[in-house]
């Protein structure tokens, strides 16, 4: 047996049963049209109404603020590492966010393993819900090759009508289905229907970026002096929202917080954002990326050049959150296409 069917009306039961063993985070509506991942009593995923959550589910693996160490300074420093983790299920993660987590897995394991991330990750079960339609106008997952996902999740469910066509990727995935879900074995006709629906979706997902994604590092290598950065310098507010909502942004600040006894305290990390003014300021006051245009250029290069070259994978997952959240409508796809266009004009000259 490989794939199973879970009836839609029984998905809530599966969700609730998981809570016996795990803290379960699912999608819920925060305000009309805006969704968040949260610990919910009931399965409340909006399914076909779904739009990417305000923050991606990375917050459960790499929280906004996190304690790294606890220390006591008297009479001599005594330090203990703090690595928090618990058994958790992220329920209803879409392909773009699964790719986001996959990429963070690479980052936090590369060079030096970051246990504060990896131990949380190791305790996390990911239940995906696949997308058959683009979720909203800003989605461009297909352009970066991230509509398809074949790794980085435990269970994947696809809405094929009144049932979820469900497959697992890991032994843990199989185990929790057997333990907590009410399911039927998928018959050949179900599998055919599932495959047909999946192949039919291809045409619905537009290729919005006007080149093959693998060409982007080259385009960006040649785009340091692209006029687009000057134009964005005038528009960008430097508010950091594009960083904060990004599934693959992982920069952080580290700081000490002493308790009022002035003897013990914590060392913490907090999400930082490379579009903020002070991101590259050194103690002597020099700012190595003083303008908003330079900082935005850096952010785009992280997604499509620097990290893409190092890990051979786009660090934009196509969720469109940065575009949606930008108060001054800086559009990622438009910016990338402008870089491509200006490059080509440059080539012709």
């Amino acid at each position, binding site marked *: 047996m490989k794939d199973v069917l879970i009836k839609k009306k029984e998905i809530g039961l599966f969700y609730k049963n998981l809570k016996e063993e795990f803290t379960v985070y699912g999608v819920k509506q925060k305000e009309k049209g805006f969704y968040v991942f949260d610990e919910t009593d009931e399965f409340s995923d909006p399914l076909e109404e779904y739009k990417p959550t305000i923050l991606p589910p990375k917050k459960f693996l790499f929280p906004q603020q996190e304690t*790294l*160490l606890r*220390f006591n*300074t008297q009479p*001599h*420093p005594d*330090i203990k*590492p*703090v*690595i928090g983790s618990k058994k958790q299920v992220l329920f209803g993660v879409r392909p773009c966010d699964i790719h986001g987590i996959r990429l963070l897995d690479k*980052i*936090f394991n*590369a*060079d*030096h*393993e*970051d*246990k*504060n991330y990896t131990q949380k990750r190791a305790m996390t079960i990911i239940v995906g819900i696949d997308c058959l339609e683009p979720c909203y106008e800003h989605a461009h997952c297909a352009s970066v090759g991230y509509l398809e996902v074949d790794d980085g999740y435990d269970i994947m469910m696809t809405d094929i009508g009144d049932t979820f066509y469900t497959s697992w990727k890991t032994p843990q995935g199989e185990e929790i289905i057997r333990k907590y879900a009410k399911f039927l074995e998928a018959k050949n006709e179900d599998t055919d229907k599932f495959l047909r629906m999946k192949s039919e979706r291809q045409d619905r997902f537009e290729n919005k970026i006007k080149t093959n994604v693998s060409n982007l590092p080259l385009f960006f290598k040649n785009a*340091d002096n692209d006029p687009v950065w000057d134009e964005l310098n005038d528009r960008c507010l430097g508010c950091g929202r594009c960083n904060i909502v990004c599934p693959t942004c*992982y*920069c*952080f*600040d*580290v*700081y*000490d917080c*002493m308790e009022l006894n*002035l003897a013990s*305290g914590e*060392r913490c*990390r907090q999400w*930082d954002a*490379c579009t903020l003014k002070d*991101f*590259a*300021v*050194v*103690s*002597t006051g*020099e700012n*190595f*990326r003083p303008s908003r245009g*330079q900082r935005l250029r*850096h952010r785009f*290069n*992280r997604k499509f*050049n*620097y990290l893409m*070259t*190092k890990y051979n994978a786009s660090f934009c997952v196509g969720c469109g959150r940065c575009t949606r959240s930008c108060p001054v409508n800086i559009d990622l796809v438009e910016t990338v296409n402008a870089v491509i266009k200006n490059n080509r004009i440059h080539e012709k000259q």
Partner: protein
Amino acid sequence: MKNSNSLFLPEIAKVVSTRQLTAMEKYIELKTIDDREFDFTPGQFVQLSVFGIGEAPISISSSPFNRESIGLCVRRAGDVTSAIHKLEPGSRLGMRGPLGKGFPVKEMRGKDLLFIAGGLGLAPLRSLINYTLQKRDDFARIRILYGAKKPGEILFPDELQTWRERKDIELEITVDTPDQNWTGKSGVITRLMPSLKLEPENTFALIVGPPVMYKYVLLELQIKQIPETNIIMSLERRMKCGIGKCGHCQINGVYVCLDGPEFSYHTLKFLPEAI
């Protein structure tokens, strides 16, 4: 690194001795509390913690041949370094490292060496200079250029004197603004460069100084036709984690903490944000 679990967990080190070098710089010598031997490459750095204040990256200034302790030249620039200045022998602090890659000592073997130190840049270069002096026969001609802002800001004057007295190395010192008692050369460090007679193919230039210095030094070295691969510069950037995660020290595609802080110009010329 010693830490088996958290990347962020420092080990505890104790201050063995301290010495005020200038008004702004203090030299501190550290040992780990379990008297572990140090093993590092010149140019590497450590992250020092004063708990409750924070962490700051400091390059190692002592010779790697002294394995019992490390020496660091700490400039009072922010909260952490100010707190380090207040430490006395016996005080304990946190340390992570050594971090970074350091100077390419293997490739430098058999070559002429030209050290160019601006201000506090002498601190990490001192580690490398003492390394090369210990292995003097491994290297050909050794020249050191050192520029300080004022005579009072000259670091390690006693050591500079012993270097000056040695017949097998050449040392030149200049200050930007001399006082009445100064009898040496004055002006920016690049003034010492035009008269240098170099064998470019056989020379390694090793440069550490304030960001503003690099552009001008580089120009002089290019005039001298030193190969790009033989020009090694140490870069300063904001660092938080020291291990290539937090993103602050990134210059284009490289992390200063992980891939440097020393880089050849051959690498840097492809990084428009570097110099």
